């Protein structure tokens, strides 16, 4: 009889994530994939700054904690010196990847850096207590947009996958969500596809995962999943924006 077990890609450390937060699901998808590809021993993960900063304690592969936004640069350094046999990924939130680390993200993609970015987009800054993120929706209330994000003063949210898909170095860019079982299954496939492409040296891969923040959204976990469906997915359509995994980018 098959037993559903914890993946060896995760340590036994209890995570610090809030109840209902989908970081845990995303951690599991990444860890399972690394285990299934038998690459845990060759993998170095890069934790970013934000809620997922302590992911270095949760993933069982070697981990490096990067300065805010710099994870793709740190991952570049690691990958370049360890070589193609290694698997290197970053795990970044929206503030880290799409605000302070925009340059590092765009240029790692432009170089076709053979790394995988796991981009957790929940449209808010979680760690610091619910401020506007680069991906905060128009009209969305946060601590620093108390009247809702006013696009005339606070600008427009960034669609990272669409933007990166214009770059020749990107082998794979897909946006997924983890708000339903069906979506979680699709998310897993996207993560698998990205890491597989990396092991085959195809180029830069990114999986953007729409995630929740019940605490800072002020919603219950169940309402949060619904909010992703009703508000985030319409603005951030799910799907594959770029797939050069067949031939690779080079």
């Amino acid at each position, binding site marked *: 009889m098959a037993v559903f077990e914890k993946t060896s890609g995760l340590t036994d450390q209890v995570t610090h994530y809030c109840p209902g937060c989908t970081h845990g699901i995303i951690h599991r998808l990444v860890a399972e994939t690394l285990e299934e590809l038998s690459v845990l021993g060759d993998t*170095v993960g890069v934790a970013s700054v934000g809620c997922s900063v302590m992911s270095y304690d949760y993933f069982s592969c*070697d*981990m490096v904690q990067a300065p805010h936004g710099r994870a793709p*640069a740190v991952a570049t*350094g*690691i990958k370049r010196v360890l070589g193609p046999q290694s698997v290197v990924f970053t795990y970044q939130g929206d503030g880290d990847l799409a605000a302070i680390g925009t*340059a590092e993200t765009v240029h790692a993609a432009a170089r076709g850096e053979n790394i995988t970015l796991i981009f957790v987009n929940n449209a808010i800054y979680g760690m610091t207590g619910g401020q506007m993120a680069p991906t905060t929706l128009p009209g969305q209330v946060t601590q620093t947009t108390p009247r809702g994000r006013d696009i005339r003063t606070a600008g427009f949210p960034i669609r990272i996958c669409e933007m990166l898909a214009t770059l020749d170095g990107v082998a794979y860019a897909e946006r997924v969500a983890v708000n339903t079982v069906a979506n979680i299954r699709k998310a897993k496939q996207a993560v698998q596809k990205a890491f597989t492409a990396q092991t085959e040296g195809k180029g830069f891969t990114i999986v953007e995962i729409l995630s929740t923040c019940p605490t800072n959204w002020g919603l219950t976990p169940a309402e949060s999943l619904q909010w992703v469906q009703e508000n985030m997915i319409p603005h951030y359509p799910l799907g594959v924006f770029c797939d050069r995994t067949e031939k690779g980018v080079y």
Partner: protein
Amino acid sequence: MEQKRYFMKGNEALAEAAIRAGCRSFFGYPITPQTEVAAYMAKRMPEVGGVYLQAESEIAAANMVLGAAAAGARTMTSSSSPGISLKSEAISYMAGCDLPCLIVNVQRAGPGLGGIQPAQSDYFQATRANGHGDFHILVFAPDGVQEIVDLVAHAYDTADKYRMPAMILADGMLGQMMEPVVFHEKEQRELPPKPWAASGHKNKRQHNIINSLVLKPAELEQQNIARFERYQQVQQQEVLAEEYLLEDAEIIVVAFGASARIAKTAVHAAREQGIRVGLIRPITLWPFPSNLIAKAAEHAKAFLSVEMNMGQMVEDVRLAVGGRCPVRFYGRAGGMVPEPDEITAVIAELEREVR
């Protein structure tokens, strides 16, 4: 055996020395007057199977070094003053993660965008605050192309030994000038093992974590105390300085790098005028040769700190002298370089004053 003398620019010799010291990854960004380092690396790294990468920014370059160092590589970046400010984020993190690496600052004049001519105005930055938090990095200040070459390998070895970043603090003059240079080869350079590195555990050990986040104050305090105990060892064991004509010196010039070279010519000229003057040249700026200066202060009548800035190292000289005799400062700033005659005149004036 006579070793081959090469005629090289400081910047190029530095790059070659790094490669010969086992550096196989360079992450850089162009900025005058250090660009030759990057250009040389771009040419040479592929020849030795190494990595050359021109990053999108100094910030990214320094963080690539962080990644490479975390993965256990002997790695480096180089820049000039404004670029070093951008790198300070990663330098602080690397200090906090106990990562050895080499950072080169071929200084130009500041503040701000400043100028592109040689200066030593990043002394404070290098020795005091190359980023936020409680930490030090090793700072080496060569005074010529040969010493640049000799210090690069030493800087790497020392950085590895104490698990901390090292900096070569040069300037536009040293970077741009050419001198004959000999590469003293080690027979077989074996880099030390780095069992702490995040290079993939191969399912053979617990996972390694390279991290500077410590949320419990008591724990972070302990970490900082332990790091400073290591720094104390560095201060006891790793100080380098040149003593020049000190035996009978009544006036002691203290200068480093390019200004020390110029001061040496001035000391010669002053000696010809019958002034008993000598020179202390700190080769490590951190750790600073405080004990050597304190000892010299027991017999000297006055000290003169000569720098290409508005007066930075002079504070360390004053601390070391501890009020035992006057400590004066002479400097040029903004990319102006002091001429030997100017310094000789200041020495002569100081000698008249304390005679």
